[in-house]
């Protein structure tokens, strides 16, 4: 399944775009790809969201934030958490990837490259501060479930890498 298969009512897109991931405020939940469907049935908006990681504590907040945003726009809503199909980093939009990079989080590489990176075999995650490729993995687990920790050996800046999930 690709992001284009989302079923989202056009009227709701601009409202949902205002809701951001509480852990990564520059990224809207639409760019993150966590909203799978949003339809209006009998004046109630039914929204389906999918978690990035099972234990992601942001999901409850995201659900509440969606409700709040819709309420401001005059809609009552119901939020459903769905697990299938499982979220993948492929669903992050190009705009979302750019927002991540600008925020100082390296965007996910494709799966194979990611494996090499995390096994520390290749240094291909570019430093978000200076752009150098002379970086190294500090830890496979970072400040949130979705990130790994890297450090740049040129400018010494530590930075987050958004792990590829497929």
């Amino acid at each position, binding site marked *: 399944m690709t992001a284009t298969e989302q079923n989202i009512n056009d009227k709701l897109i601009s409202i949902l775009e205002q809701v951001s991931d509480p852990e990564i405020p520059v990224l809207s939940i639409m760019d993150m790809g966590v909203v799978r469907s949003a339809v209006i049935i009998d004046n109630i908006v039914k929204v389906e969201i999918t*978690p990035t*990681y*099972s*234990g*992601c*504590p942001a999901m409850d907040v995201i659900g509440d934030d969606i409700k709040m945003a819709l309420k401001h726009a005059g809609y009552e809503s119901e939020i459903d958490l769905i*697990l*299938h*199909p*499982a*979220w993948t980093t492929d669903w992050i939009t190009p705009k979302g990837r750019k927002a991540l990079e600008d925020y100082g989080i390296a965007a996910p590489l494709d799966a194979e490259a990611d494996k090499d990176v*995390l*096994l520390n075999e290749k240094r291909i995650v570019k430093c978000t501060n200076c752009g150098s490729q002379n970086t190294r993995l*500090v*830890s*496979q*687990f*970072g*400040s949130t*479930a979705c990130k790994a*920790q890297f450090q740049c050996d040129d400018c010494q800046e530590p930075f987050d890498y958004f*792990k590829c*999930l*497929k």
Partner: protein
Amino acid sequence: MKNENLYNYILGIADNSLVLGQRMGELCGHGPSLETDIACTNISLDLFGQVRSYFQYAGKIAGDDRTEDDIAMLRKEREYRNVLLVEQPNTNFAYSIGRQFLFDVYHLAFLSELQKSKDLTLCAIANKCIKEVSYHVRFSSDWVKRLGDGTEESSRKMQEAINDLWTYTDELFHQTEADKVMVSEGIGVDVTKLKENYYKQVSYLLDEADLQVPESKWFQKGGKEGIHTEHLGFLLSDLQYMQRTYPNMEW
């Protein structure tokens, strides 16, 4: 309950993640370095997230008013169905890593099979969890290698941990009567089929880490039937403290 076998089967899977998640969570603020501390608690968080999916589903199957929290917090020791391996304490970092590694290798193989389950919810949960667990196994096997192939002391401690925990590995592949029913219905995973490959993979990595594969053939089991080691009670008293002290409290 209409589908008690399925309910118990789900609890069996979930309790492993719950108890291991609690053990890893104990390292919060106590990890040997900031990065490993964060990694261990990240793994704990993944496992708890997985537990929520399982328990929410189990709650639906039970069909009464029990919630995921009731299932997690309000059972007695004998009602937990986790394997003995995951309840073993954090004796030292090598034990935490050894326990994680010995479980992760199994967990990954188990979820890979669970993805083929006829039960679509279990299938979806497995689909989700396997992505997370593939990171866990990378982390734990990396550390087994680092400690095993490290200094004299780290190697000795890693070897001791593997030797001690080895006795709990065979239980992973033990089938209860309820498991057999689930396997025959195409819902459950036939764990006996995972055994050979498990020991092959584990042995390969221990070898890589310059560690000895234990030769002991004496194994303990009982967790799947609710007969636990003395460690589980202490773990549960920590885990359940809030709900026991302030019944029905919510965040």
